[in-house]
């Protein structure tokens, strides 16, 4: 054959990648040819969810066997309750977000379930004839309440899917939610310490022995606000000002919102003595402004401002200074038995667990204060070892990755910003608490999403998953089918 010889096949008529082939059938009445819908992947989700439930139940059984050689008494009750909750969430997703990412729900369910198992293990310590030391900060109803909070969390997850059928519904409430977020953030600062301070962090609202952390919900509200605000103002913010050293500096007047957020986060730091929450809010805002403008200058300005603020705070506040000292010198002087006691116990627990861990029920995590909340990661490190802890971190990383994938896939800039910001803030929160507990960065008392004991964090984390799944559903939903063959008119998906 020579090159000059024409091709035997039909000559391509349309552009490469055309959505539909030109109909080649006999001319006649137009018959709509449905494009096969992309799979919703709900079967995958169900399978993965059943696997996650199985892992959780096995861990629960292993805990009882590890503690006293018997299966836990409540395994049927808790097992059925947990499985029913997660399956309910799955069936809600089938109805409300059929194209949503199939991994998000099983991953979150696994973390939630493992958290309950670890809290159960810690609650049993020293109780009912089990070995170990009774933990004074855990009562005999802690696990029960954690399961109740999980149910409320799932309810919040379903509610988000139900109420936010389209992400743009939220855009309507940009400023309302912004105001609500700020109010939620400020409440603990304004309340007297007796109603808002637990262990040095003034981030609570305590009413009748019942405490919630409004900051956890403020995080979601402000993410929506930032997304709405930035979608409206991104062009202004992206306008180039002067160019210095290859970096486009924004105009001075556009710095306003960044400065307001910076001041707000510093105020949180000062009035609520909570560097972790402050870092997360500022990180949320800076990451979202970066997504909106794609301008590195905003990132540099944000990080610079935060570091300056943190440095100033470390000079001004004894609380922050002490945190740095604990981080840098946990074993110096009498730190290990006083200020750094908790961190040192956590680290020694993780070292005791080593690579394979002591096994659930076989370790001594009860020596670490607050092993059920701030330090639940070190309790996992001790009993499940490096192996288990890496698995947990990778589960978190997968959730973040699925969230960011949804952000990349969705076209609507508001949804894109929201999913990107929420995913990033989840990663940041895991980094701040796990990094703090493992001695990578100064320790700040924030919760480990899905795992720590306490309702606010659990409910807000589930709501966050709800939002990510809504965005992901939007991103993966196939384009509407043409009702009839409209000839040359085609619906073409444009990537955002």
């Amino acid at each position, binding site marked *: 054959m020579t090159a000059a010889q024409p091709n035997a096949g039909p000559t391509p008529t349309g552009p490469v990648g055309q959505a539909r082939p030109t109909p080649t059938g006999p001319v006649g009445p137009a018959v709509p040819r449905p494009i096969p819908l992309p799979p919703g992947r709900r079967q995958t989700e169900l399978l993965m969810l059943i696997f996650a439930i199985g892992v959780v139940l096995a861990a629960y059984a292993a805990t009882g066997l590890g503690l006293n050689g018997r299966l836990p008494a409540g395994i049927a009750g808790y097992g059925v309750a947990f499985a029913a909750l997660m399956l309910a969430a799955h069936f809600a997703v089938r109805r409300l977000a059929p194209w949503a990412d199939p991994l998000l729900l099983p991953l979150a369910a696994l973390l939630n379930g493992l958290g309950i198992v670890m809290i159960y293990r810690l609650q049993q310590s020293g109780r009912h004839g089990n070995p170990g030391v009774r933990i004074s900060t855990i009562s005999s109803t802690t696990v029960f309440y954690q399961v109740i909070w999980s149910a409320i969390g799932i309810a919040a997850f379903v509610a988000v899917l139900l109420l936010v059928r389209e992400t743009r519904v939220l855009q309507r409430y940009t400023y309302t939610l912004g105001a609500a977020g700020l109010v939620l953030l400020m409440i603990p600062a304004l309340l007297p310490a007796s109603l808002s301070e637990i262990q040095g962090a003034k981030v609570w609202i305590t009413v009748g022995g019942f405490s919630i952390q409004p900051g956890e919900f403020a995080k979601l509200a402000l993410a929506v606000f930032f997304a709405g605000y930035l979608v409206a103002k991104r062009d202004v913010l992206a306008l180039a000002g002067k160019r210095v050293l290859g970096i486009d500096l924004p105009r001075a007047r556009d710095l306003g919102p960044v400065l307001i957020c910076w001041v707000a986060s510093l105020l949180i730091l000062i009035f609520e003595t909570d560097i972790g929450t402050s870092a997360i809010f500022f990180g949320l805002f800076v990451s979202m402004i970066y997504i909106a403008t794609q301008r590195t200058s905003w990132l540099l300005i944000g990080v610079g401002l935060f570091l300056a603020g943190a440095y100033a705070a470390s000079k001004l506040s004894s609380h922050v200074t002490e945190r740095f000292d604990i981080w840098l010198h946990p074993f110096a002087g009498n730190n290990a038995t006083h200020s750094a006691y908790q961190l*040192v116990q956590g680290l020694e627990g993780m*070292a005791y667990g080593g690579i394979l861990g002591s096994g659930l029920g076989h370790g001594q995590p009860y020596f670490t204060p607050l092993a059920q909340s701030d330090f639940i990661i070190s309790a996992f490190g001790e009993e499940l070892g490096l192996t288990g802890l*890496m698995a947990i971190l990778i589960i978190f990383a997968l959730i973040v990755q699925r969230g960011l994938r949804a952000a990349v896939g969705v076209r609507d800039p508001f949804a894109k910003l929201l999913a990107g910001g929420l995913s990033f803030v989840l990663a*940041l929160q895991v980094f701040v608490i796990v990094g703090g507990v493992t001695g990578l960065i100064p320790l700040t008392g924030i919760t480990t999403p899905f795992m720590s004991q306490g309702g606010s964090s659990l409910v807000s984390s589930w709501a966050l998953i709800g939002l990510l799944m809504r965005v992901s559903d939007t991103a993966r939903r196939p384009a509407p089918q043409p009702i009839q063959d409209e000839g040359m008119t085609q619906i073409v998906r444009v990537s955002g």
Partner: protein
Amino acid sequence: MNRALLRLSLACLGMFVLLLVNVNYVQAFRTTSLADAKGNVRVFNQQFKYQRGSIKAGSKTIAASHLVKGNSGNYQRYYPDPEVYAPITGYSEPFGRTGLEEAENSMLSGTDPKLTVHNLVSLVTGHSRQGGTVYTTVVPGVQQAAYAALKAEGRESGVVALDPKTGAILAMASFPSFDPNKYVTLTGKKLERVDKALQLAPGHPLLNHTTQLTYPPGSSFKVITSSAALSQGKVAGPQSTVPAPTQLKLGSKALINDGGEACGDGHPQLIFAFTLSCNTAFGLLGQKVTGPVLHDYANKFGFNNSKLTIPLPVTPSVFPPVTDPAFTAYQAIGQFSDRVTPLQEAMIAATIANGGTMMKPYLVKEVQAPDLSPVLTTTPQELGSPISPTVASQLTQMMVSVTNNPAGTAYATANQNVAGVEIAGKTGTAQNGINNTNLDDAVFTCFAPASNPVIAVGVIVKGGGFGADAAAPIAVKVIQEYLREKGMLP
């Protein structure tokens, strides 16, 4: 916006990678330093959660762990024959250990790398960690006889019996001793009280008198002076005559023989001077050998060796380097600042008995994993050959004379009719204290049977007086018990 999202994803990836690297650092690389951190409560608690290995002497268990009654699941240490074996086992308490409990801790606790495979297997099979069993070289009957003899004498003392051919320690008794079971308590206050009382008790009961304390060797050092002189040709043989005046002027002082007596006709044979332990003869002999050479021979016999472990650490016996002839004369008869451990005395006798070759003393014969497979077996090790077989046989002849010749210093207490076996020995009666005002320390170094040595013994009794009276009978009892066990004595 996707470009920014992509970069943000990379930032998230970076954060998770940092976390993963850091938890790897903490849980895989920093475990040892964190486990060793002061006050690590988990490691502290863990020591009660597994069965620590036993220590055995022959078939007799001398230290073991057993479950405490009740359901705490904690193990407790137990020492069945505490005082007899305390200098060997030491004690193991929550905050510290001594003796073999310390020296073999990694084996007993099961943390030694040699036991790692066994621990991995038990991890897989669901068994809890168990320590290895340490088999000592100690012969229970001999150890019992040794301790009983020291206790009967009732003074601060120590005795070591060695197998001269291998260096295996057959007995190692120390008096006064202590009860290591008293350290088996979880009450910090009680522990402190027990420890304080024993620290302050007279006679250092917590110390192993055979390895941790040194005493002046006295005339027993004449064995080394003779070895040096014979090896260097300063004297031709045991039958050669040596000058032995009644007095030896050393500067402003004069060295005299015991009781100021003459040594024969003033020119006795070397063997005669040795048998009577004439100070002037050996003072002059030492000067003839010269200080540095004598120091060299002392070192060859194991003095000034700070590295010896059996595996208990051994306090070095001291022979300081001296060039002044006056001091050399004193050193040659085991005075001045010479110091020895009872173990060193036993090693000197064992070297002569073994034809001039010194074997490294050892206390641990074998370590077995929990599944009874051996993880460590000690093979006898030579420390060196300070003298030739000829010189060794000459010294044997001289040492036999000490117990066999009716004029010998140990004739009354260790001759063949008394002991039932021909013993080769040398007595020492060490003056000590300021101006020699303290009671003399009694020293005896010997081996038996002289013709075919199977046991070498070193004894020191602090304040025991004349060496032959206090120390020799103890050695005889130890030798007799061992020979009886070997069927060499009825």
